[in-house]
């Protein structure tokens, strides 16, 4: 999807800044599913879902937050954590350089945003993964930030939402990445025992160590249509079985059929569905006006 350029301004932690999350390359984009040529502004106002065929374009973490929070307002947390390249990893290039250039192009410090705000009046904690940051891969920073999000939900007794969009564990941080699966899952055990709601939203793609840990542990696992969701990548499986995989294998619909996902939810109705299911789980609207976010800078809060 090179034509659907992921160029974006350095992140603003709140939509109050009124800055678009991406600077579209052109005014027009073509839907990869139905080939309809779409006016970019229309696509944006439709939450990046093709109005003709409902193809779900991949969206950034900040677009995701904008779509979920009331008034597109939220407060971001833990934005300053960065990886220090603990393995001094080098493949065809230095991981340090890869990190630096990704930080420059995305304006983010790693592949997840943690935010609080209101969803239909309900105070919630959200972790949204950013695919354009090294494939949304989970390293030590993603692990720590999501763990803090879980602990924050626990401390505030608020529901937790995690939106996954990730190729899995980040190889360049080795076994430390692998351990983030354990770290986040341990925190989720506590959230579970505390009877607090956790809804996992799986988007295209959600694979590897992310699927095999927090993404599958929701009280509800919701998926966007036709998202690739699996543990092993399709190519790895094809190498194992030495044949092509059937059409639709490891797509959202396949996961619903096999009992692993509760529901496929169109992005345009996600918010209202979340509101009603969270209320089933005991969440209530907070009284009064939401606190006004004063600045767009991240507020660091230790939990």
């Amino acid at each position, binding site marked *: 999807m090179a034509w659907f350029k992921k160029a974006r301004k350095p992140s603003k932690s709140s939509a109050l800044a009124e800055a678009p999350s991406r600077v579209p390359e052109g005014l027009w984009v073509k839907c990869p599913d139905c080939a309809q040529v779409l006016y970019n502004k229309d696509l944006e106002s439709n939450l990046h879902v093709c109005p003709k065929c409902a193809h779900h374009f991949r969206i950034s973490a900040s677009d995701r937050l904008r779509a979920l929070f009331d008034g597109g307002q939220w407060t971001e947390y833990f934005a300053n954590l960065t990886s220090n390249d603990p393995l001094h990893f080098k493949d065809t290039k230095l991981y340090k350089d890869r990190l630096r250039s990704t930080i420059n192009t995305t304006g983010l410090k790693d592949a997840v945003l943690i935010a609080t705000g209101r969803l239909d009046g309900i105070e919630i904690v959200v972790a949204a993964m950013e695919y354009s940051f090294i494939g949304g891969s989970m390293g030590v920073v993603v692990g720590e930030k999501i763990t803090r999000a879980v602990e924050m939900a626990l401390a505030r007794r608020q529901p937790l939402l995690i939106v996954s969009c990730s190729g899995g564990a980040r190889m360049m941080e080795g076994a430390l990445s692998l351990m983030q699966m354990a770290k986040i899952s341990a925190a989720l055990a506590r959230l579970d025992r505390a009877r607090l709601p956790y809804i996992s939203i799986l988007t295209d793609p959600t694979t590897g*160590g992310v699927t*095999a840990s927090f993404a599958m*542990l929701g009280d509800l696992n919701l998926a966007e249509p036709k998202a690739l969701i699996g*543990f*092993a990548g399709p190519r790895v499986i094809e190498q194992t079985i030495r044949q092509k995989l059937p059409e639709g294998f490891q797509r959202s619909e396949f996961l619903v059929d096999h009992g692993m996902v509760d529901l496929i939810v169109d992005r345009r109705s996600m918010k209202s569905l979340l509101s009603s299911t969270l209320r089933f789980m005991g969440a209530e609207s907070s009284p009064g006006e939401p606190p006004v976010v004063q600045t767009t800078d991240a507020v660091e809060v230790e939990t």
Partner: protein
Amino acid sequence: MPPDLLDFEEPIGVLLKEIEALSMLPRTGERQLSLDTLKRRVDSIRSDIYSKLTPWQRVLVARHQNRPTVLDYVDHLCTEFTEISGDRRYADDHAIVTGFARYKGEPVLIVGHHKGGGGDTKQKVYRNFGYAKPEGYRKALRAMKLAEKFRRPVLAFIDTPAAYPGMESEERGISEAIALNLREMAALDVPIVVCVHGEGGSGGALGIAIGDWILMHEFAIYSVIPPEGCAAILWRDSARKVEAADALKITAPDLLRLGVIDEIVPEPPGGAHTNHNVAAALFDTALERALAAVSAMDSPTRLEARYRKFRAMGNIGIDGL
């Protein structure tokens, strides 16, 4: 070269051949002296080679076909082993073994991957080469819940290339099976001692590797991805596995330094596969001490310590904490 020797052990192979030839001749005092000298040289060369193994060489040792399996360790260290089978949902997975046993006379629950090592091809196929499927992880969790119910500690043995990357794994929810184990083992209210004694292959290993004390054998490996897979993705050339093995920091000393494991279990010179008796005895010492230490803690303290251990993992790699 004898089939049990690895490529980099060739100098040993040459000497072993000499020893073999010499032993066929009629014994004389002089020949006996030469034999003794040769055997001492084998030991010293072996120690020398194993004192400076590269990460890739450690991969080969960790995957050695004669490396002790979970059942070898159970044979050497436990009594009254009773295997229990099946996940009560779908099937019994032979790539993960679970059972009751006694260690030092006390009841423990055994759970561990089994690659079929030491056996013939049929054995390996029976174990699916240690590639566990969802039912294996679910059997493990069922067994561990029994341990919790009856307040018995869990000993988890880790040795797998990976969770089975086939269609049926995805169909039956391998991700959910592993994920649930991670969450439930974090909160399982009995002592858990984990030992990565062979190949710690990614999520397939981690799926039964949450515990209070993580032991790792001297020449074992523990990795987020097999070096071959990493090389194929990042170098676009699986032949670069040697470099990938180095870059991924998969050896016991590396992982101790990074805080992923708690203790290294020494192996006999030449690796655990050369002498199961000595390997088991060395493991016994570490295991007894670890089990005693975690069993001495009261439940809330132990669970909090387990949480803190995994909670801290990776923080060494973060700036701005």
